């Protein structure tokens, strides 16, 4: 038998879905990190204006903007980056473990750029006001290039999760890093970063004291130029969309109503934002006050949130395409689990194990923790009690055994018939209010039915031609 992976003492977050926790952290981090990246480019642009004497206000604006960048992005952006690791360990240790294993040298390289970003940033923050233009430009350029390269490295890892490309066969760092989604994603995020930086510049320009109305108008017009790359965003989005696997595309095009709605949210918010920016700000040179700028920034945050949800959701049923399912079990391990079981090997007790009436329910609780807990709660968000509450016990057995065909964005059940029956009993017991007594199920006929459905469903995902072939008689 293959070497088994380590089990971890996984925790649940009560009514909060784990995906919501890491998603929330991820969205805040992405937004702040993109602000830092776009901010560097924007500052270089303004420093160039200052150096050439083309805008006497540029230097003053840079010093004000940089303070916001340091106080918000340097602190919250950097810490939420670390927070992503800490949260990923809590949510799905095996997934982050695989990512670290594959790309630790890429991450280490990214860290060296992060160090440059922070040192150049703090050097500018502390001494920038006293520096001549040339030195200021040197520091800002270092900061900006390093920040963009941080995106470059992390983008390779993130896009690899959905479109691993040749890595599936070669398993080398660079075949995974330069994957089909790498370039469209990198360019899209660069344009997005510049937009966010410009929007926050509008807020800063309105908040900074000492500028007259005309001066603010002039600075806003300059900053609007950073939004011009938004023109390319629809084409880049289509390019990225075309690199996605066919089944992932199908979720976005109606296969999953939630994902289609989030896609519409991302596209709609971006179009509204782009329309206002390009027609109103760039072409008609409208003035934008602080309240409107804040509203537009909120809209950009909403577009980022929807976009990240779509990116994360479209990977289903995988967390690393064709290598690791969302519940951190590999396709090969599913085959092993079907024969020898999976949750039964989990050495870690459940938090309230002594309150369980029998060992079958304990096993069911472990099956839930290992296989369902990463995307579902029991009673809270995406709660299984609600989702299967109206199913009969026969339906539960069949639908869970044929999970990847019941809902194609679900992974196949990774366990044997006994573990599946344990899960069914656990859900029934929990749905009944966790009574003190619960009879152990020893229905041999039910066990045979489950085994038949498991065999019929096969061990492949529900979306690939191979799985379809397995289903054929």
């Amino acid at each position, binding site marked *: 038998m293959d070497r088994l992976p380590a089990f971890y003492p996984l925790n649940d977050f009560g009514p909060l879905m784990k995906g919501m926790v890491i998603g929330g952290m991820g969205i805040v981090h992405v937004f702040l990190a993109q602000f830092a990246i776009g901010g560097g480019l924007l500052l270089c642009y303004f420093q160039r204006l200052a150096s050439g004497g083309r805008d006497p206000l540029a230097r003053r604006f840079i010093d004000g903007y940089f303070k916001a960048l340091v106080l918000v992005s340097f602190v919250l952006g*950097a810490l939420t980056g670390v927070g992503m690791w800490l949260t990923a360990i809590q949510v799905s240790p095996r997934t982050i473990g695989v990512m670290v294993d594959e790309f630790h040298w890429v991450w280490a*390289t990214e860290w060296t750029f992060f160090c440059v970003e922070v040192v150049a940033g703090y050097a500018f923050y502390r001494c920038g006001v006293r520096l001549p233009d040339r030195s200021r430009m040197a520091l800002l350029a270092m900061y900006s290039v390093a920040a963009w390269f941080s995106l470059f490295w992390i983008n390779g890892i993130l896009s690899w999760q959905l479109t691993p490309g040749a890595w599936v066969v070669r398993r080398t760092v660079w075949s995974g890093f330069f994957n089909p989604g790498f370039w469209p994603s990198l360019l899209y995020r660069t344009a997005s970063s510049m937009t966010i930086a410009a929007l926050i510049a509008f807020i800063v320009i309105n908040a900074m004291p000492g500028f007259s109305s005309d001066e603010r108008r002039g600075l806003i017009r300059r900053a609007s130029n950073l939004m011009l790359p938004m023109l390319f965003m629809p084409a880049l989005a289509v390019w990225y969309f075309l690199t996605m696997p066919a089944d992932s595309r199908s979720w976005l095009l109606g296969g999953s109503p939630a994902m289609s709605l989030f896609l519409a949210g991302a596209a709609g918010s971006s179009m509204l934002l782009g329309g206002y920016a390009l027609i109103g700000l760039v072409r008609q040179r409208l003035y934008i006050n602080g309240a409107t700028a804040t509203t537009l920034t909120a809209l950009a945050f909403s577009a980022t949130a929807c976009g990240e949800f779509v990116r994360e959701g479209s990977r289903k049923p995988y967390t690393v395409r064709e290598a690791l399912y969302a519940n951190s079990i590999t396709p090969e391990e599913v085959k092993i689990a079907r024969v020898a079981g999976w949750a039964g090997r989990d050495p870690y007790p459940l938090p309230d194990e002594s309150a369980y009436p029998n060992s079958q329910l304990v096993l069911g609780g472990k099956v839930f923790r290992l296989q369902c807990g990463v995307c579902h709660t029991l009673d809270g968000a995406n709660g299984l009690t609600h989702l299967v509450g109206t199913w009969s016990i026969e339906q539960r057995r069949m639908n869970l055994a044929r999970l990847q065909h019941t809902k194609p964005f679900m992974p196949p059940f990774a366990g044997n018939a006994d573990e599946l029956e344990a899960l069914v009993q656990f859900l029934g017991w929990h749905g009944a209010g966790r009574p003190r007594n619960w009879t152990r199920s020893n229905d041999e006929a039910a066990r045979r039915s489950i085994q038949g459905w498991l065999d019929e469903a096969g061990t492949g995902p529900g979306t690939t031609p191979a799985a379809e072939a397995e289903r054929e008689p």
Partner: protein
Amino acid sequence: MSEVFPFNFPVETAVYLFLLTLSWALHFFFVGYVVAGSVYLAAASLRRSNSGDADPIEAVVRDWMPSALGAAITAGVAPLLFVQVVYQVEFYTAGLLISTRFMLILPALITAFYLFYVQKTKRFANWRRPTRAGIALAALACVFFVGTTWMRVHWLTVNKSSWEDLGNPPLDFGNGHQALARGGVFFAAAILLGSAVVRAQLGSPGIGGSPLSGAARRLSRIMGFGMAAMIAALAGAAFVYRAWPGPWMALTARADQPYWVLMLVAVLIFGVFIPSRPEAARARLRARAQLLAAFFIAVALAGIREGLRSRFAMMSTLHPRHFSLAEKGGWAVFAAFAAVNAACIAAAIRIARSRCERQA
């Protein structure tokens, strides 16, 4: 050489352990400043009725604390990465066993940063003493919480037997005496590191201004206290650890002995260069020697710490994993960019410093 930690392991494991140890030493260099600085600011806020710039040490620490915490966090990313490479299962399990506390590291660090930033604002000096003391103590509490949480994580990674008590993990830092001994050594090292950096800052025009005789005297006293604390903490640690054969054998193993020697040499160098009078000859050179000694202390601590952990981790079972990870490729890109980016960092510091000094 091949008997010195981490080179007493196969090359793949040794490389990862070397990077973990070195990056942790760099991280601790900044952490030392943050720990010592937050204690100093808390003490100053309790001591004086009016927070002003009368004390140059307080002024320079107050000014630099947010940046120092930022540097500590930035430097902390690398050991956080390499610990996942070397001790993945142990580290993840430890983080999961103290889940809530592990996740609270993040808000604690954010809170600490903004509290340090508030302390450097001009407005802060005009606030009433209870308010100022409350802010300084809250920042110190955040730093203490983060430090002790990482100590707890480390303890869990080397004590797998404690994983059995999973439903109800103990809330202390492991064995109380050992934790106290370790904490004492770290705190003493933090005082030495922090005071060495402050001395360099005070002596560097444009950063802290000219060193004042009063500040120099105070700094000498702090360094003397740090030396005494370090000797006492090391003696205490030896006394405590002797009672546990496993850790004691690991700490006195031949592979770790060079780190103890480095520690003693560093403490000696540190002691020799403690400022004895305000206008000592070649003050800057002496401050730099002390700074180097402080970094040696950080390296020695990192070596001893990771050497101890490696004894408990059964490296022979981990080596096949390190071997397969090393084969994945990408290290050459890391090495190349590490060199390029180190040069960029030096250039950025030079640009900023040269101008600041010229202005001063």
